[in-house]
């Protein structure tokens, strides 16, 4: 199993410049500065790298869209506002190997011609700001940042900007607004940030992991990178696994393993503790649809589901999900899907920016209904009402937060409707015990003795 990003995360002192450099760090900058910016973009295009923040948009293509008007500065912004429940991969990267991000930022800034580059970091990651700023200072002292880097005539400064605790600022246009010092409301697109971003200048916003992945791409070449993985899911992906698993944590996978292997192998999550059985899983962070165990391990066509963009999305939203940002949340048989959906609805109600009406009003409405169902006060008609509300939010909002709020509710009702109905029909019983597995896990082969 090839590791690219987390190859040296166990090396003592990799957080500091001396060790990082000794372990072969900043080689990609030396290599990149001998290339032309257009060549770097071309390499990234060849690598087939897809955005790791959730949407999976090809990074090389995004970079080639940036407008290049004369005399207008361009900016690269690193989106480190990782607030998705269940996702913590960027935190791991920034906390333990900050120089990898700095290195990727220098190369990407050079490719895009950004002299002033920002890292917009989530406000709650307060201590990571110090780590990053220390890393930036170290890089600057050693001549990797500042004026005339490596004698190439290219100037670059990196600034760390702290958010103030809003999930919505992970959306790229809201992030830009917030970076400009305004209220973090998403902008209405078009114009896209590639044309008018920070201070109306062309801007590229990329996820931390995407920018870190630029380093191995430059080191090994785009073609070599593209050979890792399968199909359009090239390279490696960081997965932050959590929930009912033996070994929660951040894992680097090369997108050729199956979901079953990821959950049950000892190399990764290590199976489900206490001999419980798998009930459901959210494969890509809280916004993506939840999948019951039978659809998670096998697609509706009966093929083995693999850990990559295409396979996880196989079957669309009816029987599939999304890779998302890689927040892998596993549920065992003791978890209540209604309660989980209510928790997520509460999160989205709290994080909606309040700009456009379907999301502002709809998220609050869904939360209230789900709360009723969860606490045994629901009606049967509430389930259909929930379905109707989510369908009226989805696709009708300015930014993807509306979709992100609607999808988990939709998927929970789609796959776990009987659990919702059981909650409505057994209001008292639902307060003292859980619905359990029901038929979701039936196609599974038993794992362990306790079934």
């Amino acid at each position, binding site marked *: 199993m090839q590791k690219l990003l987390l190859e040296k995360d166990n090396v003592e002192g990799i957080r500091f410049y001396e060790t990082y450099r000794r372990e072969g760090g900043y080689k990609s900058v030396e290599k990149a500065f001998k290339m032309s910016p257009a060549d770097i973009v071309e390499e990234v295009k060849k690598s087939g790298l897809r955005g790791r923040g959730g949407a999976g948009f090809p990074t090389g293509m995004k970079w080639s869209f940036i407008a290049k008007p004369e005399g207008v500065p361009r900016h690269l912004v690193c989106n480190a506002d990782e607030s998705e429940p269940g996702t913590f991969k960027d935190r791991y990267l920034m906390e333990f190997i900050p120089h990898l991000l700095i290195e990727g930022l220098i190369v990407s800034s050079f490719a895009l011609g950004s002299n002033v580059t920002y890292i917009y970091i989530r406000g709650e990651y307060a201590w990571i700001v110090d780590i990053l700023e220390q890393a930036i200072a170290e890089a600057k002292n050693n001549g990797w940042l500042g004026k005339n880097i490596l004698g190439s005539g290219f100037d670059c400064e990196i600034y760390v900007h702290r958010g103030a605790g809003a999930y919505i600022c992970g959306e790229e246009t809201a992030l830009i607004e917030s970076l400009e010092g305004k209220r973090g409301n998403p902008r209405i697109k078009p114009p896209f940030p590639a044309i008018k971003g920070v201070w109306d200048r062309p801007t590229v916003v990329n996820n931390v992991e995407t920018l870190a992945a630029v380093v191995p791409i430059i080191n090994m070449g785009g073609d070599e990178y593209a050979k890792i993985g399968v199909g359009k899911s090239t390279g490696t992906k960081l997965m932050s696994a959590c929930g009912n698993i033996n070994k929660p944590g951040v894992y680097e996978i090369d997108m050729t393993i199956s979901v079953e292997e990821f959950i049950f192998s000892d190399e990764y999550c290590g199976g489900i503790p206490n001999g419980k059985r798998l009930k459901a899983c959210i494969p890509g962070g809280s916004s993506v649809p939840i999948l019951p165990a039978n659809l998670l391990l096998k697609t509706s066509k009966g093929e083995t589901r693999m850990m990559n963009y295409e396979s996880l999305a196989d079957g669309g939203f009816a029987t599939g999900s999304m890779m998302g940002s890689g927040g892998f949340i596993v549920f065992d048989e003791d978890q209540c899907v209604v309660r989980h959906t209510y928790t997520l609805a509460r999160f989205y109600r709290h994080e909606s920016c309040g700009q456009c*009406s379907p999301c502002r009003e709809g998220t*609050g409405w869904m939360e209230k209904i789900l709360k009723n169902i969860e606490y045994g006060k629901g009606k049967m008609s509430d389930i259909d009402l929930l379905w109707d509300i989510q369908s009226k939010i989805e696709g009708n909002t300015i930014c993807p937060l509306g979709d992100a709020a609607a999808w988990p509710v939709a998927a929970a009702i789609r796959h776990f409707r009987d659990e919702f109905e059981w909650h409505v029909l057994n209001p008292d019983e639902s307060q003292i015990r859980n619905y359990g597995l029901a038929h979701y896990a039936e196609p599974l082969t038993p794992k362990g003795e306790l079934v």
Partner: protein
Amino acid sequence: MAEQQLFKVTIDNITIEVPAGTTILNAARMIGGDVVPPAMCYYSKLQNSGGKCRTCLVEVSKGSDKDPRPMPKLVASCRTTVMDGMEVKNITSQKAIEARKGVVEMLLINHPLDCPICDQAGECDLQDLSYGHGEDGSRFDFDKRIFDKHTLGPYIQLHMTRCILCYRCVFVADQLTQTRQHGILDRGERSEIATYIEKNLDNDFIGNVIDVCPVGALTDRTFRFKNRVWFTKPVDAHRDCPKCCGEVRLWMRGDEVFRVTARRDEWGEIRDSSNGKTGWICNECRFEKKNTSDWVIEGTTKVNRHSVIAQNKYVGLKRPPEFIEEVMDGVKQRYMLDIHNVSEVNEPEIRLDLIEGPAHSEDFEIADEKREEKENK
């Protein structure tokens, strides 16, 4: 100057040529009538407004001649510019109508529906919207969110419960006045228009926030609870004002001036004044000149909107052209509050004074039969 490029756009099977850069909504307004999507937050005189309320969602079934793919989602027509050869579906798209119903329902779930005591009733955009595009009843059976009332200075009252967060008043303060003391506090469901903390809105042109408010969230304190808008008569008047254009609309009853507003066009937006200035009026004209002697009266005016205050009241009211039958295979237009079509009370054949006791529906049924007989003959 280069000749302006014209784009051909088809909205609900009606084709029109508009200058490049026009939004779909404005193109639809050029056609007029039923194909115009409703707009609650868009205000053509305010930059950056629009895109927030999502009532103007339309389906784009063909992107342009060059790229004929349909757009995957419904788009906000107020912020989407037309492309050459674009085909837009508004009232002919079931998807758009459904989405709009959803938006109207969501706008109303936390709205107090206190129209009987609201000063905006009768000229409220939300009333028009919910009547024209909403469904009967609401499926929301929870407590509505409430806010405290705020008095923003001597002239303006804020009822945050009624607000639909269109941001228009924020744009007015940003674009018309030198300082902005109010804005959005908090986020999501709890977001509110407020000053930080408890300041007065004190600026020469801040009174315009009342005119742009589509609902009764910002009301005129000098007019509150004095009269219903449909009892007052709109009269155009002007005065020589050093600060603003001085062209206003007085709302009078008898000789008494109840309130002063700017002049509005048929979309409820401020109209440019006759001497080419913008039509925004200053606080002095709006709040302090409440005598007929302050004004040069130009005469009663027509309120060119399909609202309660305009209905059947003003002679010579020009209805927008009606395309609905044409584009929707003979589906008849639904008139807004056209009581004369649904009730026979005003039918001259029925003399209410000749009916013994109170009039019942049967009395009118008899009249209906009589009329049918007459028509058959």
